[in-house]
């Protein structure tokens, strides 16, 4: 089964992250990279995302005309900081993988597991 893992954080988490000294942030980045390397067999692709204020949304406006707005479509104080596409046997394996993330990158408190529609 394929799943998309979304690494989520709150605005407060983000603020705390930015307040960290660069050295601590670098350490966390190293741990994340380690985690990804350790689970290469299950992770198909992965990326970090820039902050919400850099996001642009394109809406289908009146008459099918695209309407461009500044910021994410999904509002709220939660932020998606990154994603990973994984392929594993079942939800239990996905849960185990997502659970193991907790030890590596305390910046993202929640990992959402989205099942991917497959052929």
């Amino acid at each position: 089964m394929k799943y998309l893992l979304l690494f989520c954080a709150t605005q407060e988490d983000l603020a705390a992250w930015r307040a960290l000294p660069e050295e601590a942030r670098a350490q966390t980045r190293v741990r994340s990279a380690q985690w990804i390397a350790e689970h290469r067999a299950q992770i198909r692709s992965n990326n970090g995302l820039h902050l919400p204020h850099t996001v642009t949304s394109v809406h289908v406006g009146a008459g099918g005309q695209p309407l461009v707005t500044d910021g994410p479509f999904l509002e709220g104080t939660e932020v998606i900081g990154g994603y990973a596409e994984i392929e594993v046997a079942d939800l239990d394996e996905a849960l185990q993988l997502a659970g193991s993330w907790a030890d590596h990158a305390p910046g993202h408190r929640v990992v959402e597991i989205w099942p991917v529609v497959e052929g």
Partner: protein
Amino acid sequence: MGRSCAGPSCGRDLACGRGVTFHADDQQDAPSPRLDGEIQATLSTVFREEAGKLVGALVRLLGNFEMAEEIVQDALLVALERWPIEGVPQRPGAWLLTVARRRAIDYIRRDARYRDKLALLERPVVPEPDDRLRLMFTCCHPALSRETQVILTLRAVCGFTTAQIAHAFLASESAISKRLVRARQKIVQAGIPYRVPREEDLDERLNEVLTVLYLMFNEGYLASTGSVPTHRDLAEDAVWLVAFVARLYPREPEVLGLLALMRLHLARVDARFDGEGKLILLPNQDRSRWNQQMITEAGRLIEQAAALGHPGPYQIQAALVACHAEAVSWQATDWPQILALYDLLLSMIPSPVIRLNRAVALRYMAGPAIALSEVEALEHDLEAYHLFHAIRGAFLLELGCSEQAQAAEMRALTLTGNQAEQSLLHQRILALNYER
């Protein structure tokens, strides 16, 4: 439904039903005119015995929970229609299996994706002993909400119809059916596995199953009035399933503990209500109506669990209830022992509801004033819990503050949804008015 349920103490929040009728279109409590009690009891027993085995076997063969569950539900509905007229077949399990297999073959012929499964169904379908257990772990998977776990277990493992579940939770059939559709979709689309969990997850997942079964039990037990044989009883199905789990995991002390706890509650169920269905509190219950044999058996289970050397919350709760069940009278209750058990329980689960119950035990050792101050410290956490106000009211009354007591009881009354409990609180308020 829509009320959420997140903790072990909120079984009563799930809903306050009164058991389940076999009437597909009947939301009332009246006994069904079409089915007599005997055939209803037979149907319950057969469905409970067979449904989970069948669903489990079909999930294993077809690899699709959604389809398996629907097929078995169809077969149960055919039985519900025909058995009351034609009589229950000699081998009801085989009968249901035949109907289910035919339906399964129909389904598969319609859906090209499952063609390769056809051959599997043409051979006899033999349930495996683990089918029902795997099914239970699927239905109680932690990725499903607590309510969904309970509903799914009732439906897939115990063979409740949508109408019966709707009746048990005082919800509409369409609401239940919508939840079931979504739950089945989640199992299939999110890839919730159908298997016994790995060794390292077993404790946690077994605990998940026990929580669901205890919620199911409480729903039936708290809502029951002790005298509605025409309804399918959630408590009975819950005990039956825990006994089933205990047979498979005889060395899991918490399973034995929960089984003992449920049996101790059931042993006293007849004494909980008077002839009019009014609730009788523990001090006023006629202890000769308690089932002594069940109490003794439960005591044996507690000892068996304790011998395994891993105490846990269900074992301690069972020991607590046993203290009451084994006391020859209310006056003979061993309060120091009960208080010690509450302290032990609190060290495992620091829950305000447990502290509230501990305060009741404290009342009998240290008096109402000290107990009241313990209770009032819990106001922040338990403001919305009817028993908080009921207990606070009782202590206030003892201390002679009848006006405050009445206000507390009124608050309790507005918070409880259970009629028997409501009527008890109502009596107390009337008594207060009378005293003044």
